[in-house]
């Protein structure tokens, strides 16, 4: 039963990180652009980072339905809240990743006649992504743990499964230890994966 919860935890987190990276990349780029998008991205990041994920989850699940006049399944609400949340953090990671790339790379690409988009896509982002793999991994791990918050909208991820079992058996110590162990296995796997990816994407070392 705990394992079905762990599966949901991994599922929710993976989907959220996937959309978070897309959203975050766009946000990170917008943060460095000129014009109204830059402002919009800054507001998005500030608002999301300045409010608790718990509150964001409640707003998406309880608030959004009255806005769009139809219920949102808890699963969708959770993915939405986690992705939006993750996007803001990833946005900052991407922004600093892009900024860490030497200005000479832009100049070299420009001098060859590459457009801004081509430069971003082929020169800057590939290098930036290599650099942001470690902080991105940290974000994944943080989200893996934070995703337990979506239990408040009745999603039975790992922590909630633990609570349910404890509610029946009143055996908190064993169950929490098992929950912690499963979390550890998951985060440990992710951090090993990140290490591996980082080594693989560094051309040679």
């Amino acid at each position, binding site marked *: 039963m705990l394992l079905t919860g762990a599966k949901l935890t991994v599922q929710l987190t993976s989907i959220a990180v996937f959309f978070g990276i897309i959203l975050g990349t766009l946000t990170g780029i917008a943060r460095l652009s000129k014009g109204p998008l830059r402002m919009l991205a800054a507001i998005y990041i500030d608002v999301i980072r300045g409010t608790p994920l718990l509150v964001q989850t409640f707003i998406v*699940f*309880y608030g959004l*339905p*009255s806005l769009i006049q*139809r*219920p*949102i*399944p*808890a699963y969708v609400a959770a993915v939405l809240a986690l992705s939006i949340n993750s996007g803001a953090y990833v946005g900052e990671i991407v922004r600093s990743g892009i900024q860490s790339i030497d200005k000479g790379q832009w100049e070299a690409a420009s001098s060859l006649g590459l457009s801004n988009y081509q430069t971003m896509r082929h020169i800057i982002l590939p290098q930036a992504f290599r650099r942001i793999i470690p902080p991105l991994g940290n974000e994944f791990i943080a989200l893996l743990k934070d995703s337990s918050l979506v*239990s*408040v*909208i*009745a999603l*039975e991820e790992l922590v*909630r499964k633990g*609570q*349910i079992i*404890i*509610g*029946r*058996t*009143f*055996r*908190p*110590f064993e169950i929490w230890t098992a929950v912690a162990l499963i979390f550890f296995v998951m985060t440990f796997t992710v951090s090993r994966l990140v290490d591996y990816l980082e080594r693989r994407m560094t051309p040679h070392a």
Partner: protein
Amino acid sequence: MKKLPVFILTVVLVVAASTVAWGAGVLRVATEAGFMPFEFVDEKTGELLGFDMELIKAIGAELGMEVKIDNISWDGLIPALLNNNYDVSIAGITITEERAASVNFSDPYFESVLTIVTKSNVQNIASLDDLQGKIAAVQISTTGDFEASDLQDAGGLKGVSRFDTVTDAMQAVIIGAADVVILDLPVANAYLEANPQAPLKHVGPVADNEFYGIALNKKNTELLEKINGALTQLHENGTYDKIYQNWFGAQ
């Protein structure tokens, strides 16, 4: 190594604190005050009110002990007992065989009856047999949760959504994320009285009865006997009935 002195200090403080709390005449009570009308926080005064609160104070008075109640999380109620941070937990806890393997329960002090809450305009739900294909919202680890889970296992329910509070479960029905809430009748009554504008109603008593008990550490048998004695006393001298009427009206 800077942290070592801090650690030692913490240990000393914790030990000191628990020694003080162990002082003879104090009954340390843990509850989770999100279960109106059994236990809840008075919005104005911040005081802990409810049937359970009044009952445990009466038990304390009967035993000549000072009652100190803390409002902690539901998940903390049982660990707190196993750790000896508290002597008893009282929070509308349903007595089950499974739970009784981990803690001791007092004699039942309340017989609970379940009900179903639906939207006001729903006509075709009157009993637990009418819930096929429906999704039930419940407060996690309550009687309603157990009933819903059994029902789901038997195919009489499509799904169970477990929330931390009754309010969240009710809200889920309001926004259409669930069809019904299954919960204790007194709790449903209290919620609907407190929120008359909510587009919800309950269908009256359904299903069988469950019993609430006061939970204690298995080793603490001496206190268990005292509390059972006090409960008997309260029934005999009419105090129990007074408290019951106070919260639920006629018996």
